[in-house]
């Protein structure tokens, strides 16, 4: 089992990204702690997906330094990196005629590679991932026939089977209704709490981020403009800086703070 660690997972120093002359991310320095749920929020085009792709090696930095566990990203071999970091793209691809179990089993690729034997350990991890994510009912169904929420759970199960220390999730709730959004984020947080898995998640909805994240990074126009606990971020002043509109913070009956745009 992975042990919950409290060290630093990612470390960025003056990292920036530009594509075809457009700067997507201005020089940025920050650290991402392990074992916590870290939320990335911001307006469309603020660079939150870019930052996540950078961490997942889906995108190369144009300059600066990115380290995972103290080693530069480029020094990690493909499979060694995939054993540490699992990434869920914003839109999950169609899976053709694959069943849930077959998809989840793909998560073991970083461990057994193209030709290695499938060991008892692999099978145990797959069973464990199915159990943890409650996806047994979908294991023998075709992934493409599942509903949006069910499909997202199966994909997350694949990431869990990958046995990574860190999950990078790009808007895992974007296509889901509100009940399924809560369900998926609940699952993500319980993975973090029970297994010490670090999570970096891009979220659209600031209230969801405040409810489920331990730490929030807010981006605006490719720059980090705020960082802190949900209580630090959910204030009218910070929210105006992030989204550029007036927001009000309301106290719910259960004591939680939620923000709504001032209408």
């Amino acid at each position, binding site marked *: 089992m992975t042990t919950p660690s409290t060290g630093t997972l990612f470390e960025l120093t003056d990292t920036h990204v530009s594509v075809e002359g457009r700067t997507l991310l201005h020089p940025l320095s920050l650290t991402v702690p392990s074992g916590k749920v870290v939320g990335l929020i911001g307006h469309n085009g603020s660079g939150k997906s870019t930052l996540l792709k950078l961490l997942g090696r*889906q995108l190369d930095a144009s300059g600066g330094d990115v380290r995972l566990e103290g080693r530069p990203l480029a020094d990690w071999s*493909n499979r060694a990196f*995939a054993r540490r970091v699992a990434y869920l*793209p914003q839109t999950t*691809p169609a899976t*053709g*005629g*694959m069943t849930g179990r077959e998809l989840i089993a793909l*998560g073991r690729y970083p461990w057994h590679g*193209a030709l290695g034997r499938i060991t008892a350990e692999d099978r145990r991890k797959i069973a464990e991932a199915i159990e943890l994510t409650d996806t047994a009912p979908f294991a023998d169904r075709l992934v493409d026939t599942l509903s949006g929420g069910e499909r997202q759970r199966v994909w997350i199960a694949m990431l869990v089977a990958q046995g990574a220390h860190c999950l990078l999730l790009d808007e895992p709730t974007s296509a889901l209704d509100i009940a399924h959004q809560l369900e998926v984020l609940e699952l993500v947080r319980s993975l973090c709490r029970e297994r010490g898995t670090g999570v970096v998640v891009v979220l659209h909805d600031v209230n969801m981020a405040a409810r489920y994240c331990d730490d929030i990074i807010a981006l605006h126009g490719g720059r980090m403009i705020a960082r802190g606990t949900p209580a630090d971020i959910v204030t009218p002043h910070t929210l105006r800086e992030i989204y550029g509109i007036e927001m009000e913070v309301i106290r719910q009956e259960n004591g939680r703070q939620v923000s709504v745009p001032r209408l």
Partner: protein
Amino acid sequence: MGDVAVSMSGSTHPPLRPFGLVLLLGVPALLAGLVNLSMQLPPGQWWHALIQPDATDIAELLVLYSFAPRLVVSLLAGAALGLAGALLQQVLRNPIASPTTLGIEAGANLALGATLVFAPVLIGFGREWVALGGGLLTVTLVLLLSRRSGLAPLVVILAGMVTGLVCAALAALLTLFNSHYLAGLFLWGAGSLSQQDWAVPRELAPRLALMGAAALLLLRPLALLGLEDGAARSLGLSLKVSRFTALAVAVALTGSVVASVGSFGFVGLAAPMLARLGGARRLGTRLLVATLLGAALLCLTDQMVILLSSSSGMLLPTGAVTAMLGGPLLLWMLPRLNLPPHTASGLIAPTAGTGRPFMCLGVLAVVLVIAAVLSASLGPGLEGWSIAAPGDPVWSLRLPRILAAIAGGTLLAVAGGILQRVTGNPLASPEVLGVSAGAAGGLVVALFVFDTIDRSGQTLAAMAGASLALVVILALARASKGSPERVILAGIAIGALLDSLVSILMASGDPRAMRLFNWMTGSTYGIDAASAASSLAAAGLVLAALPLVARWLEILPLGDASARALGISSLRSRSLLLALAAITTALATLLVGPLSFVGLIAPPLARLVGLRRPLPELFGAALLGSVIMAVADFIGRSIAFPWQLPAGLVASAIGAPVFLWLLTRKKT
């Protein structure tokens, strides 16, 4: 939808004025024409030749009765094709509809060829009626085939281009059997504008004027047809009548051109497209500009061809040249098109899958053995059909070609399956991605550069060609952000490019051309036992290599991001798999020619019978592909006994309808 279909989002240039574009093409055409004219007749004599032609001066006669009518015909034919393309695009709300991409030209051409051979009497009624009938039949077939998709633009074009390929293949078959009658058909099918008098322009002009007037009358209903069906109907338009009339006018325009001068691929696509890009937004302007641009485009091409042939002595058919220019044009256009994606449900519909893949594969293997044994023992002879027991001497004649057909089918099916998985594109296959065409192209070049070339040399040339085509197509796929149908269209464009190259070679009258042609249609006739055995061994090796790449084949269809996240170096794995596909295609192309649809249809058929996972799917596809090729070989050998039809051609006649059926099959 039709009006917004071409978006120029990627470009920062201001749109050119539409009529400026006409000048841009027209002025060089005029200049080239003047240069050509002055080479034939000194400028000082022009006025004289026009006012008082001197019947004894050869140069003046040539200009008056050859050069001038040719110029007029090129303008008329270009205008007709431009208008036809613009009409088709409007009626079908499809920015890449054209006489070429809908198969109308190929259909008209086939009708003419078939009539010449089987019912020459009909030609007496007028060639254009035959061409019109062929064109109408083709377009009806294409629309019927794509009706289920609600005439989704990409499906219509796929159906059209595949139908066009089949028509071209059948026309090729006719040529193979009747090369005496149809020697001229090639030149003519490839579109030649040379004239001896004013008969053709005198024939064409009134017809085109009539059609032009009809188009003018149709202007208002056509403008409404550009809207959604519901909206057009609510504006009080009878959709069926106006749609059919406009289609008929477009087909009639194409038919007249094909009947009098042959086909000029892509002029009918390029002209309306350029009109659109030039900013001709309103329908009336667009039809006019497309007509003018078509005239300018064909005239320019033709003058260039004249210039080239007078300076180099090469006789090029203008139609083949327009096809050669049109291929790259379509390739350039594809990434810039804004087409609604269409999921080919019949090809990717998730099937429940069989719980017992081994059983399924076993049944397929038994079917293959039965087919092979039947094919070896049965056959028509001089005294009718006979059965030969194993050991009979005919077995040693039949067996090599059956085995070669099986090897070819296996290799193509595996190449198709790999390409479909690597590109994540259910429509990919060596044939439609232009990989087979590339292999054929490599071979053509080798055949013409080196006089004699042995089998291993041929293999190398074919492999080089296949790899090159694959690299080009994948670069294009990247540029067009990998929409499946676009990649396919790009592949078909590459295939058209090769076709035009071959037409040019055929028209050159080189004796090697006939041998090449024989092979292009995929004949297993000349296979000896040794090459059959080595092909079979190659197929076996490829099958044995599949388990090594099975996991890649499972993960890569999920896309780059997922593959990378799972620790696969997608560059390395993809290059390896694509190299495997290219080699496999090259080997198969040498055996059965580039023109079968086995690589396209075998993998989806395997999925249809319930083989889902990569390995069972590929092995099943290999078995199915072998069965199809073995049956095609048998049919080709016996249906027209004592003549032989090439197995590749028969396979394409079986494969194309199956593909179209898969493409339009409803989700169950």
